[in-house]
């Protein structure tokens, strides 16, 4: 299986706090990779370092064998990556459709002529992009909301829109940061199906989650972090049986 992302000795320290310490991990093509660990284990920091938002204190990140350590976020994103955020980050004042169109930023190249000398939204590139975004919104059941201001959407739809926006850039890898936070069990079940469907379309998905039902239900492989270190890696069954994981979550059994 091709390794899309590979990290070597990846470490990130904040002052004296070692948020990540010598993490070696890979993201393989077309898998669903779960990343779990207690609060403060360094999961989000891992995402942030892999995507260039933080500079690692030590170590390297490779995309398809090419080193991207120290690159700006937008140039890393250009390598075929998209993400969602733990606390939803939508463009609150823009319409649902425009949110998704921003997601397509790197795909649309209208040129100055089309921008200045065609009626707004009537350029060929723009129409194609719009059609693509609408079909994406349809897939997420948001087509009726296309003209609404995204800040006014209910919570569940915001979560979906964030995923739709991420997919609009047609990434190779989709990073989901706690997608089920604040969802009720029904919504979570729906989300699981959605993630599975996305993966079946050929996208590689990486999920950070606290919800064990979700992570155990959909992941092909799981990486467990604790105190910034990778403490386990394997398929869901192996992880569930792993003593160090149980300890990290439930606390040590007193003898």
């Amino acid at each position, binding site marked *: 299986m091709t390794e899309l992302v590979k990290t070597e000795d990846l470490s990130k320290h*904040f002052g004296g706090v070692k948020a990540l310490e010598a993490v070696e991990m890979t993201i393989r093509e077309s898998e669903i990779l779960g990343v779990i660990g207690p609060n403060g284990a360094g999961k*989000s920091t891992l995402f*942030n370092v892999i995507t260039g*938002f933080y500079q690692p204190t030590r170590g390297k990140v490779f995309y398809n064998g090419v080193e991207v350590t120290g690159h700006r976020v937008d140039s890393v994103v250009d390598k075929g990556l998209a993400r969602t*955020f*733990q*606390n939803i*980050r939508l463009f609150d004042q823009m319409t649902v459709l425009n949110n998704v169109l921003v997601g397509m930023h790197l795909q649309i190249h209208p040129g100055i002529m089309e921008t200045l000398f065609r009626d707004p939204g009537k350029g060929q590139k723009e129409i194609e992009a719009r059609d693509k975004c609408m079909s994406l919104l349809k897939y997420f059941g948001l087509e009726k909301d296309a003209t609404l201001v995204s800040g006014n959407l209910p919570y569940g739809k915001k979560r979906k829109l964030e995923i739709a926006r991420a997919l609009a850039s047609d990434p190779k890898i989709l990073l989901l940061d706690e997608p089920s936070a604040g969802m009720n069990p029904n919504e979570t079940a729906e989300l699981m199906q959605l993630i599975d469907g996305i993966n079946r379309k050929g996208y590689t998905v990486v999920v950070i989650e606290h919800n064990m039902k979700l992570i155990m239900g959909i992941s092909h492989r799981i990486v467990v972090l604790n105190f910034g270190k990778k403490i386990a890696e394997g398929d869901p069954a192996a992880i569930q049986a792993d003593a160090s994981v149980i300890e990290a979550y439930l606390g040590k059994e007193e003898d």
Partner: protein
Amino acid sequence: MLLQHLINGLSIGSIYALIAMGYNMVYGILELLNFAHGDVYAVGCFAALGLLTMGVHPALAIMAGIIVGFVINLFVEKLAYRPVRYSGRVTPTITAVGIAYIMRNAILKIWGPETFAFDIGVRGSNLQFGGIIIGTLQIYILLIAVSCMIGITLYLKKTKTGQGIIAISQSIPTAALMGVPVNRTISIVYGIGGALGVIGGILFCIYYDSIFIGIGFALGTIKAWMASIIGGVGSLKGAVMGAIMLGLMESMVSGYVSTLYKDAIVWLLLIAFVLIKPQGLFPAQVAEKI
């Protein structure tokens, strides 16, 4: 000659330091780009002028001016800033611009744009060492500025309210959980900021023997900003250091380059400074969380 410029720069810098301290106390607590700082304290200075011309004893007049600065900032905070305290950055900044214009034009309406003599009857003599002239006034200014700085530092460090202010500047919710009355404490900070501004402003007037509308914005707010850019926005230590460096820089520029372009050159230096050191000399460490 260099030494003379250093001394002049130091005295004007210490005045800027008082103004910048008042500004940065407020900034440190709410991160508000307080456009109105200078214009608010200018009201206090003009009130002092008004009392002086009515024949009130200078000490009383100055005291009254300081109280006016304190009270006005207190009310402005309550009426204008508190409602927009959590409305992001643009909204409160524009509110502050509005306040600045209200205050400035109130002064213009009452006193007009003229320059007035500001005579409190203290005329210092000059001490001469070799070729260098040190006005006793300069020494007084330095003393007053330094004692204000020490006073504020002690207030913040040693009193309960002072510690509450420091706590609020780190985290409003955490301070609230300790029992710090957030709204009242923030009001006090604004008041102190205004009062410090008036002290600085009046020293300025005494130093130059005159008062005009420009002591608010052009010589106050802008200098406080400049000092903050150099020292690092929101840091008291940075403000003082930045203000003194600003004073020295200005004194050097007008001594060796050009008085005419003093402001422009200083601004250009600052823009260059921002380019090289965008967070100032004493940056506050903030890690963005996503």
